[in-house]
């Protein structure tokens, strides 16, 4: 199916209602697609009931919708079974789940390898695991481009290494991770690989089997879906061997005062009432994403990204973070302008209807490694267009005038 990307903006209610808005903060939260919002409303007004326990027709409809959402997510990821898909409250919750449940099977001295480029959500949970269990936490360093430095991988992924947990794509530099190299190295020693897909999934359907990974986490709100929902995919045999994390209704086989036995995955990992309508809304967004021509969208996203980088490079003194080649990055562009603080830049940009984010972007270790403390970030999504980029370049000229 071919989609004229110029029209995509109209499919997003907030953008359609604010034609003057240049939304360039999609890496923080992408706007919600009309179909996703409609699916939420439709579910809440025609199928609302708790899942997995009721037998009346309304509950059957809720169950069906929820389990179909699971199947849609499985197709989006090319998982071998919907039972490998766990709905969580978001990517952060999914990553914490792995750090607790899979982490609970690790012992002191086992190594978990993360990278300097991680978002705090894939950094701090492993620090906490280190505190709880005495695992060794090792860090893949980054190159000046922000890309992972895989030169010394064989030392980092040694025989003590049980898990490599890295971001698929940096939320600051946009740098894509060389997953194949990591997976090959991990396989040699039997280590598992977790990919934090929070920034990857919004750039198209994934193939977790082709990637050869073991866990994949992402958030609905960054994939044009509702907030309050995320996905953890895990290989069936790994999930089956993992203890639960959150506990409560829906994830047990039997509870007695003495002990409790667990339901099989995915229920084992979905304690309590899940975000049902949100999962249904996310599935609508993922269905829509699967209907798109991603070659075309990537070409367009890359073109906008190059346009932006070219324009930024003309600003004297501006320092671009991230890889040179646009093929090596998602359309996320962060930069520093000497003497100008990102908050002031974003404030002036806002006055020109540009929505950008400045700060450390929950990636302090990465910024420290790149010799920056804070930066300004423009993140492009499939609804972005040339007008957004031109407005940003104009806005930066205003900011330079106004702030100096």
């Amino acid at each position: 199916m071919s989609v004229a990307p110029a029209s995509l903006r109209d499919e997003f209610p907030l953008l359609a209602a604010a034609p003057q808005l240049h939304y360039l903060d999609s890496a923080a939260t992408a706007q919600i697609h009309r179909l996703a919002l409609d699916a939420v409303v439709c579910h809440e007004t025609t199928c609302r009931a708790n899942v997995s326990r009721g037998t009346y027709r309304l509950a059957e409809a809720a169950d069906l919708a929820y389990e179909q959402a699971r199947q849609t997510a499985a197709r989006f990821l090319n998982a071998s079974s919907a039972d490998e898909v766990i709905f969580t409250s978001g990517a952060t919750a999914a990553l914490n789940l792995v750090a607790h449940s899979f982490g609970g099977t690790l012992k002191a001295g086992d190594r978990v390898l993360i990278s300097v480029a991680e978002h705090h959500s894939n950094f701090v949970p492993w620090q906490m695991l280190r505190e709880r269990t005495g695992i060794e936490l090792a860090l893949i360093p980054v190159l000046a481009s922000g890309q992972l430095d895989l030169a010394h991988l064989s030392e980092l992924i040694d025989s003590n290494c049980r898990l490599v947990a890295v971001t698929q794509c940096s939320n600051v530099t946009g740098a894509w991770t060389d997953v194949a190299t990591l997976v090959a190295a991990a396989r040699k020693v039997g280590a598992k690989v977790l990919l934090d897909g929070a920034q990857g999934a919004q750039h198209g359907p994934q193939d977790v089997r082709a990637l050869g990974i073991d866990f994949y986490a992402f958030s609905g709100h960054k994939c044009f879906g509702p907030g309050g929902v995320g996905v953890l995919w895990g290989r069936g045999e790994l999930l089956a061997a993992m203890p639960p994390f959150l506990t409560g209704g829906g994830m047990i086989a039997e509870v007695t005062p003495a002990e409790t036995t667990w339901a099989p995955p995915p229920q084992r990992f979905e304690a309590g009432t899940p975000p049902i309508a949100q999962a249904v809304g996310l599935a609508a967004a993922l269905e829509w994403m699967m209907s798109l021509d991603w070659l075309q969208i990537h070409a367009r996203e890359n073109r906008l990204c190059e346009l932006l980088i070219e324009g930024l490079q003309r600003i004297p003194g501006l320092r671009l973070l991230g890889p040179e080649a646009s093929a090596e990055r998602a359309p996320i562009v962060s930069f520093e302008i000497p003497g100008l603080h990102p908050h002031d830049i974003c404030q002036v940009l806002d006055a020109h209807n540009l929505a950008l984010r400045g700060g450390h972007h929950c990636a302090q270790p990465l910024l420290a490694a790149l010799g920056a403390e804070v930066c300004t970030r423009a993140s492009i999504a499939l609804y972005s267009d040339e007008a957004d980029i031109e407005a940003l370049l104009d806005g930066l000229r205003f900011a330079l005038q106004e702030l100096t």
Partner: protein
Amino acid sequence: MNQSDSLYEDAIKQFAQAGHGHGQLAAATGAAKLDNPLCGDRVRVQVAVASDHIAAIAHDTKGCLLCRAAAAVIGLRAVGQDELGIEAITTGLESMLKHGSPVPAAWPELSMFEPARAYPSRHRCVLLPFRALLAALQESRRSQHGDIPVL
């Protein structure tokens, strides 16, 4: 829509540039470092307190224009004040930002921050140096008086 065009008045830029009080004290009686974890603004304030009044102040401020301008106001004006006075001005400034109260009369230049009222997320930027100063004064009091309030 260009609401914020007026935010960066010349006064703010001038204060930020001037950076009154930037530096270090040789003999501080109290010091404090405060961050705004969400944006990376960071203020370090040192005070030398004598007879319960600020005799000298220095700060080291990394941050946006609002934060740096606020630090410079402190650098220019804090000497001679006591903890209660700084507390009153901080409360007044916060109330000006959050509730539109009048500019604290004692430090009229704080009026330059009035346009920031419209931007709640920036209130922290303006307030950070004041909060760091209060923390430094508290530390000074504790070290000088053995934790007995100064009154």
